[in-house]
């Protein structure tokens, strides 16, 4: 985004968002924290009284603590949906252990002779608790509450992953968009919030409990609990709800484009890539963004909506090959082009599904595919030379690399060495330029935006047409790098909007324009 924009300018421009995110963050933290106090302190007292339960209960909350936060949020989605509810429950569960353990430790650490004296003088169990055990354990309990608070302020950033708002929206959006101002606009208030809450609690720690009536301790808790609900994002509802990743929300070829070009104005929440497919499948979201050939599209029975106004640049896949290699082995081009136009979006999705979700090997999937299309030839075990085929580090690229290996070895006397799992576009491309690999599958949009990086005007002009983009990268790669784009394989792994199949069918929504009309009508 704007590299020249200063941090303060960003803050001023986004003040509204910052305020609502901070409010949501405070709300999530306080509600979960107070709920945890109301449960964990009595529970801690209970296990201090009945030590035979302590190991089991402390162990259980300890296990809760070890569940990775993202996983915990994922587990909760089927039961609680997305939004503040699962976030609060997850934060509540994380806050339990420090409060519970400190309450238990604080109470059991009270000098036995003091408790003995209290009982011996004629205090009831409740009086011993209120006048002796709790006041003496209070500093330790407060230390636990402070630990839980700081943990919760931190973990609450993850609430942005499941559409619960909070400062995580800025943080993860900033990371996805490589915008440091945005990251800091989320991270600094979160840090300040942790410090502030910890400081306020340190003041509360100094309050002498021995003269305090229980009710005066209880009332502020309940008050804060209820007022905190008003800080949360307003209830999500309405006819159709969209969940977009922080990156998609901030990209001009993402949500900004949807608004500007389609005039699409729908209710949206921010959600993580890992959560959105599941949330859509669980009918918590109706529309999500995604990659059109992602195996999860099939796994969760989603359909992609046609981008009829072409705001998503085409990402047509095609092998790119060193011209030197083609000159040396001219038969190679024909062999590789056997795949051209053969794999459409849904076929690629299916193949990805088999690798990503059914855990079949890319090799088996590739052999099956070639056999189905009568392209499979057993390897000739030739010794004419070696072709090095590269691939990036995800399933689709592994499958394509296997397909090319099988085709080359079955149709020529060349051998293939696969160099799979090259970290990213930059690593793959550098390997190709530096003659460490001979070819790898690339996407036209990536070649355009990541490698060639032309001016925004050029990108906008080209993006309307897949053919124009292909022609552009074909020409530029040839001139600049002496690398040839062979014919596209046929599928376009671009950004897409997706809906559940039944929902899209029942509403007769096929394209993004259909979606916009539907929303405007209702």
């Amino acid at each position, binding site marked *: 985004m704007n590299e020249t924009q200063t941090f303060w300018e960003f803050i001023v421009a986004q003040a509204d968002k910052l305020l609502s995110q901070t409010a949501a963050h405070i709300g999530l933290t306080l509600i979960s924290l107070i709920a945890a106090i109301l449960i964990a302190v009595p529970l801690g007292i209970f296990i201090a009284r009945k030590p035979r339960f302590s190991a089991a209960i402390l162990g259980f909350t300890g296990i809760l603590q070890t569940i990775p936060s993202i996983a915990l949020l994922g587990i909760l989605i089927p039961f609680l949906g997305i939004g503040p509810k699962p976030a609060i429950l997850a934060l509540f569960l994380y806050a339990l252990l420090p409060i519970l353990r400190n309450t238990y430790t604080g109470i059991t650490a009270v*000098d036995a*002779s003091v408790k003995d*004296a209290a009982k*011996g*003088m*004629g205090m009831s169990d409740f009086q011993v608790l209120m006048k002796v055990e709790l006041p003496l354990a209070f500093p330790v309990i407060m230390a636990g509450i402070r630990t839980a608070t700081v943990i919760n302020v931190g973990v609450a950033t993850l609430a942005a992953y499941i559409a619960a708002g909070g400062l995580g929206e800025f943080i993860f959006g900033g990371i996805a968009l490589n915008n440091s101002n945005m990251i800091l606009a989320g991270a600094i208030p979160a840090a300040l919030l942790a410090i502030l809450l910890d400081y306020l609690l340190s003041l509360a720690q100094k309050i002498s409990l021995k003269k305090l009536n229980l009710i005066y301790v209880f009332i502020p808790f309940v008050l804060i609990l209820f007022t905190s609900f008003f800080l949360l994002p307003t209830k999500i509802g309405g006819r159709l709800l969209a969940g977009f990743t922080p990156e998609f929300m901030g990209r001009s070829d993402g949500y900004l484009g949807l608004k500007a070009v389609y005039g699409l104005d729908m209710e949206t929440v921010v959600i993580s890539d890992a959560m959105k497919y599941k949330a859509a499948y669980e009918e918590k979201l109706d529309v999500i963004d995604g990659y059109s050939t992602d195996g999860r599209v099939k796994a969760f029975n989603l359909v992609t909506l046609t981008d009829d106004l072409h705001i998503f640049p085409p990402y047509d896949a095609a092998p790119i090959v060193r011209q030197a290699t083609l000159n040396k082995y001219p038969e190679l081009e024909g062999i590789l082009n056997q795949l051209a136009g053969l794999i459409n979006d849904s076929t690629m999705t299916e193949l990805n599904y088999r690798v990503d979700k059914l855990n079949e090997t890319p090799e088996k999937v590739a052999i099956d595919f070639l056999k189905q299309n009568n392209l499979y030839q057993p390897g000739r075990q030739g010794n004419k030379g070696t072709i090095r085929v590269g691939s990036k580090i995800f399933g689709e690229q592994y499958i394509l690399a296997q397909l090319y290996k099988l085709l080359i070895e079955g149709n020529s006397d060349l051998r293939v060495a696969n160099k799979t799992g090259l970290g990213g576009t930059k690593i793959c491309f550098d390997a190709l330029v530096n003659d460490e690999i001979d070819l790898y599958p690339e996407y036209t949009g990536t070649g355009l935006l990541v490698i060639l990086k032309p001016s925004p005007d050029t990108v906008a002009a080209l993006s309307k047409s897949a053919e124009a983009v292909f022609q552009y990268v074909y020409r530029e790669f040839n001139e600049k790098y002496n690398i040839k784009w062979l014919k596209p394989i046929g599928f376009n792994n671009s950004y897409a909007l997706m809906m559940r199949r039944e929902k899209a069918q029942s509403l007769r929504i096929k394209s993004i324009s259909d979606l916009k009309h539907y929303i405007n009508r209702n």
Partner: protein
Amino acid sequence: MIRAEQLLKRFGGTIAVNKVSFKVPRGGTMVLLGPSGCGKTTTLRMINKLVEPDSGQLFIDGKEVYNRKPEVLRRSIGYVLQHHGLFPHYTVAENVAIVPRLLKWSSEKILQRAEELFIKLNLDPALKNQYPAALSGGQQQRVGLARALMADPPVLLMDEPFGALDNLTRIRIRKEFMELDELKRKTVVMVTHDIQEAFEMGNQICLMDKGAVMQLGTPEELLFQPANAFVEDFLKDQRLLLELKALKIGQQSAWALMDGMNRADLQQVLTRVIKP
């Protein structure tokens, strides 16, 4: 008056207190004596029901106590612990006010009674606003006693009250306690493992071993008519000293007479006592 009948307490499989009976007359002091683990503390704690007996009965001033609410019972029984058990988060004044507050005394009455006790117990009134941690061991023990005496309970239980003190302080405070007229009016049951202390303070000693009473009687009875070999053996090491204290020459004990004598005089007296 306290009367215990056949008190029995089991902890798991072992019998901690085995059918112990005793009677302490009003104003009397009974000392529960014995080696550690003999059941003396458990016996004491059954009197204010901090330990619930498995069977047996207990009467205070003729009234059965076990069917009373334990909290109410305990408010009428003073309780002094070895490690004073003062509330660390309460000032001295607040500590001594605990039982009176449970009994809903007025603040003036509490203040008045505290002042009275502070004087009797040689406590500097300036200590009132201190926290227990700021006090010396002897002062803490005095405050512990003041706290137990505040509501003027007819019965006082003391569990090794001087056990945590150094020797010199212990002897001094013990002496002060014995001279306290408040204590003289009370029915006292005290636990100790210190034979000297038991003989000095008790007008009745209940010597226990392995949960059972070995002998119950006056110090003189234990000394001169031991009921069995255990009693004799238990007192063996300190017999001479105890006998010197028990031996009355006129109004005073032989021990007291010897106090302050020079070496030559002492030799003379000893020759007379041991080889008559």
